[in-house]
C-alpha cells in the first residue's frame, strides 16, 4: 500500500471540506473495497477521510411507504434489522448474502453504491425498487444514478447520505454467485411496486453494470409467473465474459435467476 494520511472528521460538513480541498483524497467507509484496492496498489489516495462513524450517515427508519437507510449502515446491520426484515424482507435477505460475515460486519450500503461494482448486489435492489439516493447536495432517482460499471451520477466529493427504498407489494432476489468471492455472476431482483409497476433489475451480468430487463418487466406485468420470463433471453452481446463464465452462459443465467426470483417473491 502506498503512503496515505488518515482523517476522521467529526461532521459531514468537515468531511466534505477536506475532500473539496484535495482532488486526490477519498472517502473511506467500510474499506471492504477501497482497502483491498489500495493493497494491490491500484489506488493511491493522498488522504483517507473516514466517514464510517458519522451520525448523519447512520440509522434505519420505516414509514408506511418507505424504508430509509443511512449510507454508513453495514450489510450486517441491514440484514439483521427487524424494521428492514418486516418492511422489505427481500432487501434484508440480499444483504445477508453479500460476501461473508466479516465483510458484512464492515462493508456499507453507501460504499457499495458509490463503487457500483458490476457484480455488486445492492444496485439490483436500488434499481428494481426505484429507490432515491440522497446526497449532501441533492436527491437522485435510481434510474439516473447508475451510469455504467464503476460509474455513477455522484460528482467529485459528493457524499451519499442515505437511500430511500419504497416498500414494494412484493419482491424477490436470486443470485448465482461466484463461489470464491460470492459476488454475483448474475443476480436478478424483481418487484411489483405499490402503484402496480413491475420492475426487473439485473446485476453481475451486463457489460454496462446493473440494468433493467424491460422485456421481462412487460411479461411479468401481464402474467406474474416464472413461465412468463422463462423464454426471455437478454442479448449475449451485452453480457460480461470472463474466466468465470462467458456471455452466452451469463445470458442464460439471467433467465434462470429471473425465474427463481419470481418464485421467491411469490413465496
Amino acid at each position, binding site marked *: 500500500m502506498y503512503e496515505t494520511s488518515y482523517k476522521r472528521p467529526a461532521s459531514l460538513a468537515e468531511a466534505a471540506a477536506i475532500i473539496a480541498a484535495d482532488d486526490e483524497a477519498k472517502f473511506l467507509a467500510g474499506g471492504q473495497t477501497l482497502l483491498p484496492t489500495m*493493497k494491490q496498489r491500484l489506488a493511491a489516495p493522498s488522504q483517507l477521510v473516514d466517514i464510517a462513524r458519522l451520525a448523519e450517515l447512520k440509522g434505519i427508519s420505516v414509514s408506511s411507504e418507505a424504508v430509509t437507510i443511512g449510507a454508513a449502515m453495514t450489510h450486517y446491520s441491514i440484514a439483521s434489522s427487524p424494521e428492514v426484515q418486516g418492511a422489505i424482507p427481500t432487501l434484508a435477505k440480499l444483504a445477508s448474502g453479500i460476501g*461473508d460475515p466479516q465483510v458484512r460486519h464492515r462493508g456499507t450500503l453507501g460504499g457499495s453504491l458509490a463503487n457500483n461494482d458490476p457484480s455488486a448486489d445492492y444496485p439490483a435492489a436500488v434499481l428494481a425498487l426505484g429507490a432515491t439516493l440522497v446526497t449532501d447536495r441533492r436527491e437522485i432517482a435510481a434510474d439516473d444514478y447508475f451510469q455504467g460499471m464503476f460509474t455513477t451520477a455522484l460528482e467529485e466529493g459528493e457524499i451519499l447520505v442515505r437511500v430511500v427504498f419504497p416498500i414494494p407489494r412484493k419482491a424477490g432476489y436470486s443470485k448465482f454467485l461466484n463461489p470464491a468471492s460470492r459476488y454475483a455472476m448474475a443476480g436478478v431482483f424483481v418487484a411489483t411496486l405499490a402503484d402496480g409497476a413491475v420492475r426487473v433489475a439485473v446485476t453481475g451480468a451486463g457489460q454496462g453494470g446493473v440494468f433493467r430487463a424491460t422485456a421481462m418487466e412487460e411479461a411479468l406485468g401481464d402474467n406474474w409467473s416464472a413461465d412468463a420470463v422463462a423464454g426471455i433471453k437478454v442479448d449475449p452481446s451485452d453480457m460480461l465474459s470472463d474466466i468465470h463464465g462467458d456471455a452466452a452462459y451469463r445470458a442464460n443465467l439471467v433467465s434462470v435467476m429471473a425465474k427463481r426470483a419470481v418464485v421467491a417473491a411469490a413465496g
Partner: protein
Amino acid sequence: MVSVSLTVNGKAVTREVEDRTLLVGFLRETLGLTGTHVGCDTSQCGACVVHVDGVAVKSCTMLAAQADGCAVLTIEGLAQGDQLHPVQAAFREHHGLQCGFCTPGMIMAAVDIIRRHGPGIDETTIRHELEGNICRCTGYHNIVKAVKAAAEQSGGMAEAAE
C-alpha cells in the same frame, strides 16, 4: 503518523504508527501478537479474523486507525490462563485442524458465529457462516464438527449459569 489508542485483549495500548498501517500489521508487528495470521492479499481467506467491539472482522482489511477507541480481541486473548476457551477445546477435541495456519481465524470466526446464532445452530448454517474462512488442508468437516460441538456446549453452559 497517527496516534492509535485501543484495548487489545483487555489491555489499553497507545502507539504512533504510519497512517496506512493495517490492523493486522499493528497486532503482529507493533504489538508482537503473531497469532493473527495473513494468508492472502485479497481479503478472502479469513486467517486474519479478530473481533473489534465484539464482532468478527478481517484485520487485513481495516486500518489500525479505524480501530482507534475500539476493543480488539485476538486469539491470544481467548484462553483464561491454562484453560482453553470452549471453542479452542472443541477444535482440539474434534481435530479441527491439520497444519493450523487457518486455525486462529477459524476460531475467532467460530466464536462470533456461536455468539450470533446460539447453541441450536445447524450444519448448513455453520458452513454458510464459515464462507469467509479458507482452509487449504480441506479440513472443513472436522472444523464444522468442532463449531457444532462448541455451540451445543455453550447452550449447556448458559443453562447451567441460569
